[in-house]
């Protein structure tokens, strides 16, 4: 299987083989992260620019380290301290970075579709690091990588995505990726945070948390995106936590060996209880390590080969 896409904008539309290739390639990458000398020369002479229009700790650091571990030159641009504040448009900023010879642009933006817009305007390859409520493909990949590592497979598993589905690009990337790989996906949250069209993505949607958790192999708890909430979607954070937070009692409804994931940063005591977040069934820190590995895999597949016949 050869990776032929110019950009990685989302998991929607990627084939079973393409996702499998990304996940398989991440396995040897993880070994590199665990070495004393975390450096391979593969992307020497390649440059990667992280263009972040939204706040981020783990995704930006993860991409930057992934690039550095593979010897790419990496530069970070935070929109708040760049020409963006002078009013430069996204496309102009992208073209400027392109003109400096960047091989890859990793972008996060609050508008859905921003990465696709940029990708059409630049020669550099574009990786979407989150665009609005649309997609966050590398997060979806690292969740799937973690599940596959712990459970040995993806096909046939029941994965419950719990929380604020409406605002979540993580949920969408998980849904596209997991259903392509043959997992059963349930989504659960308050009705105001469950987009009505979500069932069309091939998932079971419910507001009944007990039904959603019963027999689940994996629970992916989403962050309540406090910065994106409009008024009136739910009464109080406390009530949300009481009705939809994952606590130890609710966890007993799942399979005994259930795996708990959270994309971070966590609102402890809201969507996830402390004892669950720090419990044996949670692999939340492991997800962070795996995030670097899948990003290394994506960088390798996108910059490793030559550019003949590349297209989307």
């Amino acid at each position, binding site marked *: 299987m*050869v*990776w032929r896409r110019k950009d990685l904008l989302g998991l929607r539309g990627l084939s079973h083989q393409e996702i499998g290739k990304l996940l*398989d*390639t991440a*396995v*040897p*990458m993880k*070994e*590199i992260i665990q*070495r*004393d*000398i975390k*450096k*391979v*020369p*593969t992307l020497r002479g390649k440059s990667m620019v992280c263009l972040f229009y939204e706040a981020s700790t783990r995704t930006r650091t993860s991409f930057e380290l992934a690039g550095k571990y*593979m010897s790419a030159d990496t530069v970070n641009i935070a929109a708040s301290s760049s020409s963006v504040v002078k009013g430069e448009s996204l496309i102009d900023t992208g073209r400027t970075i392109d003109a400096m010879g960047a091989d890859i642009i990793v972008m996060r933006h609050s508008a859905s579709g921003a990465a696709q817009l940029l990708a059409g305007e630049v020669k550099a390859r574009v990786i979407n690091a989150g665009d609005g409520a649309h997609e966050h493909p590398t997060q979806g990949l690292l969740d799937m990588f973690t599940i596959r590592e712990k459970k040995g497979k993806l096909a046939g598993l029941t994965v419950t995505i719990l929380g604020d589905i409406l605002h979540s690009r993580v949920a969408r990337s998980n849904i596209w990726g997991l259903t392509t790989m043959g997992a059963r996906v349930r989504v659960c949250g308050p009705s105001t945070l469950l987009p009505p069209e979500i069932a069309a993505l091939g998932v079971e949607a419910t507001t009944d948390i007990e039904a959603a958790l019963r027999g689940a192999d994996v629970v992916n708890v989403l962050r309540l995106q406090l910065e994106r909430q409009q008024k009136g979607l739910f009464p109080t954070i406390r009530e949300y936590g009481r009705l939809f937070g994952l606590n130890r009692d609710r966890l007993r409804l799942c399979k005994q060996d259930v795996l708990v994931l959270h994309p971070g940063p966590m609102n402890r005591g809201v969507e996830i209880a402390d004892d669950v977040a720090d419990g044996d069934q949670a692999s939340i820190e492991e997800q962070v390590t795996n995030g670097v590995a899948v990003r290394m895999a994506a960088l*390798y*597949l996108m910059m*490793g*080969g*030559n550019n*003949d*016949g590349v297209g989307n």
Partner: protein
Amino acid sequence: MTSLLLSVTTGAGSFILVIYLQMDKDVQEDEGKGEQKGRRGKVMEPREKTLLMDAEGVRRAVTRIAHEMVEKNQGTAELVLVGIRRRGVPLAERLQRKINEIENVAVPLGALDITLYRDDLTTLAEQPVILKTEVPFSITGKKVVLVDDVLYTGRTVRAALDALMDLGRPQSIQLAVLLDRGHRELPIRADYVGKNVPTSKKEMVSVCVQEIDGQDSVTIQERM
């Protein structure tokens, strides 16, 4: 031009040379066509296959190399084996078993994937599959013996040397190969060689091992 100059000076002898150069040119043209065919996805027709080593031959070579290794290193102290993926790994396993028979010591065994260290990544159309590097011990201060099936241009070994250095600082690195077919492009030589075979660059050498290919053999065949 060369042949014309020679024909002035040496008469009959040069006639043969002229023909030779002409033939060589034809062959090169054929090769060019062959490559184009390959790119279109058609398989190149191999000419006849010659067996260079059978299973017994491979077994004897491994046995001899194991003895040489123990002799050269005066035992197995600090000795570790690292096979280069893929076919160097089963060969390294066999050497380990052989050394165990001789010295009753199980020397540590690792597997190295050199893909990320290749110097031709940007020239390949496909991204090569990366396999896992598994060297579950520190190589610092060890006498590392790299094991591979064929030594050819030396570029794989160059990549392997870099990959090893990224894992630690060995006391020394030696190289064992089942077959040395010449045509080095880098100043690299093997310490232990199963068989030296002069080859042409047009020939294809394939090593099969039981663990991966279901049989042990080394064959050579000419490409059309």
